[in-house]
């Protein structure tokens, strides 16, 4: 019998993480009025998920699934396609960067870079949409630079939080438990 790439348990975990991304986006509010602040929890979830299900493609599945959920729930200011692609690309790029850096999300630098790249990918999708649809130039000339910096910083913080969560999970014996289950 052909072995499936993700086990049922892993798919359930990925679905739960996808739902968590959307729930966090809806329910968690920060008082920060800066572009990209949602990356703090968003990228933390993706980094944790990529380690809990340590296979290339895990973050992509989360990105695409949460993108579908978010699109159907009508999240985002710029329509269905923009929401789906930005969520999806975030996961795909996070996956790609994780793979290129050796796949160990428990490495602090790797976790931070995954957070930054995933989050910047979301920004680039949104910005590209504006470019394609002929959106007007930013009202504030430095607005774009500020937005990019915001996405990088909050993506990095998200990566750091994800790394700290992984550390706590390891200390609590979660990965030993997972290994036993296998």
């Amino acid at each position, binding site marked *: 019998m052909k072995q499936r790439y993700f086990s049922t348990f892993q798919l359930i975990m990925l679905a739960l993480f996808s739902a968590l991304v959307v729930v966090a986006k809806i329910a968690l509010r920060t008082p920060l009025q800066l572009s990209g602040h949602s990356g703090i929890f968003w990228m933390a979830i993706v980094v944790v998920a990529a380690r809990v299900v340590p296979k290339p493609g895990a973050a992509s599945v989360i990105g695409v699934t949460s993108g579908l959920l978010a699109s159907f729930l009508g999240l985002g*200011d710029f329509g269905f396609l923009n929401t789906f692609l930005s969520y999806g690309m975030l996961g795909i790029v996070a996956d790609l960067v994780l793979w290129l850096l*050796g796949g160990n999300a428990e490495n602090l630098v790797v976790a931070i870079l995954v957070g930054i790249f995933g989050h910047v990918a979301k920004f680039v999708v949104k910005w590209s949409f504006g470019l394609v*649809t002929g959106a007007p130039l930013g*009202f504030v000339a430095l607005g774009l630079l500020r937005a990019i910096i915001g996405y990088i910083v909050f993506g990095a913080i998200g990566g750091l939080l994800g790394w700290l969560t992984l550390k706590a999970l390891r200390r609590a014996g979660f990965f030993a438990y997972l290994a036993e289950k296998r």
Partner: protein
Amino acid sequence: MNQNKRIVIAVVILVVIVGAVLGVDFIQRQQAASVAPEDMPPGSIPIFVDGKFVASFVPDDLSQLEGASFVDAEEGKTQEGWLLRDVLLLYVKESKLKADTQVTVSSSSREKSQTLTWAEVDAQENMVLFDLSGRGTLKLVSKIPSFDTRDDWVQDVDKIEVVQP
């Protein structure tokens, strides 16, 4: 390839991506500046009164305006920016604006527009304001019951029109 090299390459790629985005934006601004009239700098929002161009709302004007904010009922997010009322009063005398004067804010790229009366715009409790989007463009938002969701709001605003009845 060792890990340090990979990390350096990743950082270089990030710098290239950021540079490309800022570079494209810079080129767009240069191109727009070369064709735009002097009184309509790139990124500014032209204001028309009864079909006549009167001024452009430019970032320098922001220093004269007081900020305003509210939490939207739809997603519970804070919408923060500058009241449309205050923006208009920078260029149009209040005596010229009657309760039924129509104010239309539109976005050509999104093919969206919203027409409100001056009475609605002027009412502070309606919170008709411009929020700055992540891309740096303006988004018209409000608490007016028929104009309080993302579907109704006007993103990427590029024109304000005032029409006297």
